[in-house]
């Protein structure tokens, strides 16, 4: 399985994401934001956390219009897999690959702590390592993680079983406690919490590792 991890100026979780994919058995290529295409044979693109382009204008807005993001959109349009974590989730909503937007946290503060997440679906390659209904612990670290979409969009996401994770205790005001959502074809996941930062015992927990292990297994079999 071949994963590409995008590196924007200001990304700071790109290496963590690459290590998480590698430990799960994937081959990883780092891809610079000025590149215009993906390496040959990429199965999944990781859009990492951080502060791409200094979060200027809006979180993810400049990155969403960068040269490499056109290749990310093309990959998603072809039915390719994409994982966006934190700033990566913000970027995916800014490109329109995923619906909604991430607003400033309702409490206005940057929140950095482990949180409990309910796994709310098992219908996706991203969730193969988990059981629907279970609870996992992974950290969040964001100032703008307050998921917003209009009521009709929220209803549609829930009706189509596209909410992947919800917060057990809402830390940021997100609509319907949403922590992560899937695209319509279930091959794009955007989430604010960081599974790559809870991927081995030295991190203080390894609940995030199952996402990468499950993905590698699913995509290797495909």
């Amino acid at each position: 399985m071949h994963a590409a991890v995008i590196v924007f100026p200001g990304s700071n979780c790109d290496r963590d994401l690459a290590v998480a994919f590698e430990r799960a058995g994937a081959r990883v290529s780092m891809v610079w934001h000025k590149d215009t295409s993906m390496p040959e044979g990429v199965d999944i693109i990781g859009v990492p956390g951080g502060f791409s382009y200094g979060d200027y204008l809006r979180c993810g807005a400049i990155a969403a219009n960068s040269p490499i993001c056109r290749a990310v959109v093309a990959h998603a349009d072809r039915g390719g897999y994409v994982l966006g974590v934190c700033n990566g989730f913000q970027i995916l909503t800014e490109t329109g690959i995923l619906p909604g937007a991430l607003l400033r946290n309702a409490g206005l503060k940057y929140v950095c702590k482990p949180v409990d997440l309910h796994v709310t679906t098992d219908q996706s390659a991203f969730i193969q390592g988990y059981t629907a209904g279970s609870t996992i612990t992974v950290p969040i670290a964001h100032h703008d993680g307050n998921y917003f979409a209009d009521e009709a969009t929220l209803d549609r996401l829930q009706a189509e079983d596209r909410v992947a994770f919800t917060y057990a205790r809402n830390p940021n005001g997100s609509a319907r406690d949403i922590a992560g959502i899937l695209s319509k074809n279930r091959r794009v996941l955007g989430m604010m919490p960081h599974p790559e930062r809870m991927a081995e015992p030295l991190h203080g927990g390894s609940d995030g590792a199952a996402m990468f292990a499950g993905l590698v297994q699913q995509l290797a079999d495909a």
Partner: protein
Amino acid sequence: MKARVHVMLKSGVLDPQGEAVRHALGSLGFEGVQGVRQGKVIEIDLAETDAAKAEAVVTEMCEKLLANTVIESYSVELG
């Protein structure tokens, strides 16, 4: 030609920063502040001299980059 773009969160969207400013105004003794919404102003210097063309291109800029129309509304002022 100069263009000035105002970007505001849409009316149904919670504005926590505006709320924080409202609370701060209250604690400074300003009474009767019933609501505060915080937005941004973007000034653009354009080579274009035709107002209609300038408005069209700035509107496109807003749709593509300057505003996220999922959560924000915008208005364009020329001159």
